[in-house]
């Protein structure tokens, strides 16, 4: 199984490490690195929209930037940090294992993501520039090189990078799944698992089921692009002043395959953020989550439903309106279990003893963001209103709150919370609070204003909104949104400086600085190779034993390993 021999060389300790904690941090650092690009791209988009008269970039460059901003953020920042980063770091620590089930496979999964990142970045400098067909890569725009400059080599590199990403994800998923299901330590039954682990489990299963259809779509698109097949390309298209020789393919097939993956994907990244919030809230409200079991069932229902509602991205695509009706009824139904999770997050404050530490601030703001953004989803899942909102900034605002704000707040909550476990030091608190305020205020501002723009009919992926008169009212919001974006970026700079300073010079942390009852806090901070000493912990209870124990002691919690009273 896991070998307990400590790695000796620098290379085996930090480069090709087999230790899940190092690998988790490698993922998080890679996500930070890619986030620099994703954020820079966002600033270019916002600058262009606020001051279109300056023509900061060319129209085709703008489309590449929009495409790569989305692709990099969703896959190479959020998914990398939340699912791969925290998943790797936390799972063995929270289930009482020394490491993942397959440490070598784990290491390989990280080193598969690195070339994927490099290919994505490389695509910026090839002829024609990076892919420019949106993160959704719909053919024929993405299939034919003359349709838009980025559909040359840039799109090919994008597709190859995505293929590598999928392979890496599946390799990682095998580890997360088997470690959670099979490597739980003695006494740790499924319903004694932390809610965060449940979210990682559900997220992993969704990934194993949803990524392969995307792989199929990627393969077929590569074939259409390079071997002249017609999976997605019909007859009669005129591009580059010639009638293209394709025949019989249908672009809608790609959309079905993409969104069959695409909708579960958003839950793959949102659920772990929710799980992290539950952990943080339990510790800082000094009480168990409200509705542990209902939360587990709710997230299972969310996941199951998420696989049968993909058509709500395609209401006006030319899909049959009857099929559209079905997708609408099913899609809004997801609100129900998701609202259960929301209620449970809120109710977890009740009868608590709340300490407003920095992680808790992020977790509480996350609850507000879920409510705000999640309710907006109803406007899009209802087919009739979606006719108006499809492809507008309402969609952009909605998904930015859900997979931009909720996820990032979860990531930040997790980083501030588990920083001591990762590095044995505390992440600077003063700067942390500044980071919090300078993140949530701009984020809410930006993404809520985008909803108003969408309500006014303002469309997405538009290089210069001044071309249309009907955007006159909504255009005025672009400047405030952009200013908020500058503030947001500034805040992340503070965060990164604080982070790296604290890694080396932060105040040394106790083993369990937050007095949490979770299993991971029974390991030293930072957690050593092998996580625990000679003996693995034995679990006697769930990880939320908070309260007044009337046993004379001052403490208001009992760790998971504490034996139950005789």
């Amino acid at each position, binding site marked *: 199984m896991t070998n307990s021999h400590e790695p000796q060389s620098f290379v085996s300790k930090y480069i090709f490490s087999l230790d899940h904690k190092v690998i988790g941090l490698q993922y998080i650092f890679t996500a930070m690195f890619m986030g620099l690009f994703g954020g820079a791209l966002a600033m270019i988009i916002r600058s262009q929209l606020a001051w279109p008269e300056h023509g900061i970039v060319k129209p085709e460059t703008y489309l590449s930037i929009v495409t790569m901003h989305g692709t990099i953020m969703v896959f190479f920042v959020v998914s990398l940090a939340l699912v791969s980063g925290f998943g790797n770091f936390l799972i063995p620590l929270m289930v009482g294992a020394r490491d993942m089930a397959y440490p070598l496979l784990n290491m390989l999964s990280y080193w598969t993501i690195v070339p994927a990142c490099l290919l994505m970045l490389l695509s910026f400098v090839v002829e024609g520039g990076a892919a420019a067909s949106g993160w959704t890569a719909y053919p024929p725009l993405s299939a*034919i090189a003359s349709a838009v400059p980025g559909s040359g080599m840039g799109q090919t590199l994008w597709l190859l990078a995505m293929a590598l990403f999928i392979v890496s994800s599946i390799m990682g998923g095998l580890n997360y799944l088997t470690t959670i299901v099979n490597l739980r330590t003695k006494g740790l039954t499924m319903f004694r698992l932390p809610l965060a682990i449940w979210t990682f489990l559900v997220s992993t299963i969704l990934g194993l089921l949803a990524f392969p259809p995307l792989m199929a779509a990627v393969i077929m698109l590569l074939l259409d692009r390079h071997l002249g097949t017609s999976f997605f390309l019909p007859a009669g298209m005129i591009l580059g002043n010639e009638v293209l020789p394709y025949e019989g393919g249908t672009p809608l097939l790609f959309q079905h395959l993409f969104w069959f993956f695409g909708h579960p994907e958003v839950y793959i990244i949102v659920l772990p953020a929710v799980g992290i919030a539950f952990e943080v809230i339990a510790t800082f409200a000094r009480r*168990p989550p409200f509705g542990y079991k209902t939360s587990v069932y709710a997230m299972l229902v969310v996941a199951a439903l998420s696989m049968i509602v993909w058509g709500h991205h395609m209401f006006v695509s030319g899909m049959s309106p009857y099929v559209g*009706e079905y997708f*609408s009824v099913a899609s809004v139904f997801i609100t129900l279990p998701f*609202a259960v999770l929301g209620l449970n997050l809120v109710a977890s404050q009740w009868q608590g003893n709340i300490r407003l530490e920095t992680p808790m601030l992020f977790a509480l703001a996350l609850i507000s963001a879920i409510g705000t953004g999640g309710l907006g989803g109803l406007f899009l899942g209802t087919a*009739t209103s979606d006719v108006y909102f499809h492809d507008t900034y309402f969609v952009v605002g909605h998904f930015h709150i859900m997979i931009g704000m909720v996820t990032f707040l979860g990531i930040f909550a997790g980083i501030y919370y588990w920083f001591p476990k990762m590095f044995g030091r505390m992440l600077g608190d003063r700067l942390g609070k500044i980071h919090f305020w300078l993140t949530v205020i701009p984020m809410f501002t930006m993404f809520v204003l985008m909803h108003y723009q969408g309500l006014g009919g303002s*469309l997405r992926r538009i290089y210069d909104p001044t071309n249309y008169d009907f955007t006159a009212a909504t255009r005025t919001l672009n400047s405030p949104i952009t200013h908020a974006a500058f503030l947001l970026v500034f805040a992340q700079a503070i965060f990164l400086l604080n982070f790296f300073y604290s890694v080396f010079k932060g105040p040394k942390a106790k083993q369990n600085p937050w007095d949490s009852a979770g299993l991971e806090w029974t390991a030293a901070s930072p957690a050593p190779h092998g996580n625990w000493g000679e003996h693995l912990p034995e679990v006697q209870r769930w990880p939320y034993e908070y309260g007044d124990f009337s046993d004379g002691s001052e403490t208001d919690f009992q760790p998971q390993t504490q034996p139950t009273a005789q």
Partner: protein
Amino acid sequence: MGNRKKPFLSIALMGFFLLVMLSIPAGFLMKTWLPPVASKHGVGIDYVIHFLLWTTGAVFVVGHLVLMWLVWQNTGKGKSTYKPVSQKVEFIWALVPVIFMGVISEAGVLVIGRPVWQQLYGETDADALKIELIGRQFEWFVRYPGKDGVFGKTSPEAVIKRTVDGDNFVGLDKSDPAALDDIVLRSALRLPVGRMVSIRLRTQDVQHSFSVPAFRVKQDLVPGLTTRTQFTPTLVGEYEIACSELCGLGHYKMRGMAIVLTEQNFDDWLAKQKSFFND
């Protein structure tokens, strides 16, 4: 540790939640963002939107009030007053969001939304005006079928080949008698007010999407398919057509105009149009 005073941070957090809770609905209430509606079914779409705004708005406000109250009440207490509740109570509380959101969401879709959806995709009026809209990178072409009411044959080869005089925009086949009276125009389509129009949508290259915010209409143009949309304009005026599916570097300027005229003015205008091959 038992200080009763609320920490400053707690007050700031409440202030923040209050700001969120008030400003977001205020933004919706203080300004009419929706462009004035100019189609029959559009009224129904606006009704769905307003229904959702009010109901989700209520949930949003109530949810934030509860969150604020709970956080405020339980911060700075010094000691937890937590007492476990039974799983049964947790399950019963779970029914609250299930029932509320179930009613709101499915009422929106099935009760209020469905009739409008059926207007959009249902039966076409017998006297509906039939026109065709053809998109290409990066402009719109409109085709009226002429007096015979039949759209003539087109082909992409004919587009490339051009005609003797210049561009054969939609690739009309001169040998097809039905094509001889077809009227082809660029960028602007004219419609009579109060009469349903049934629009055939085709694209010559990649995907585009026909949308007119004022009409609350949106339908993708899909290569290899002929899609359709229909609506009844209710207000005379000029409305912008915007492409709403990323189609390349000129996507942002793929603009057209939908001009709604009185029935009389429309008939007069149509009578004056020359067919494409008589130009």
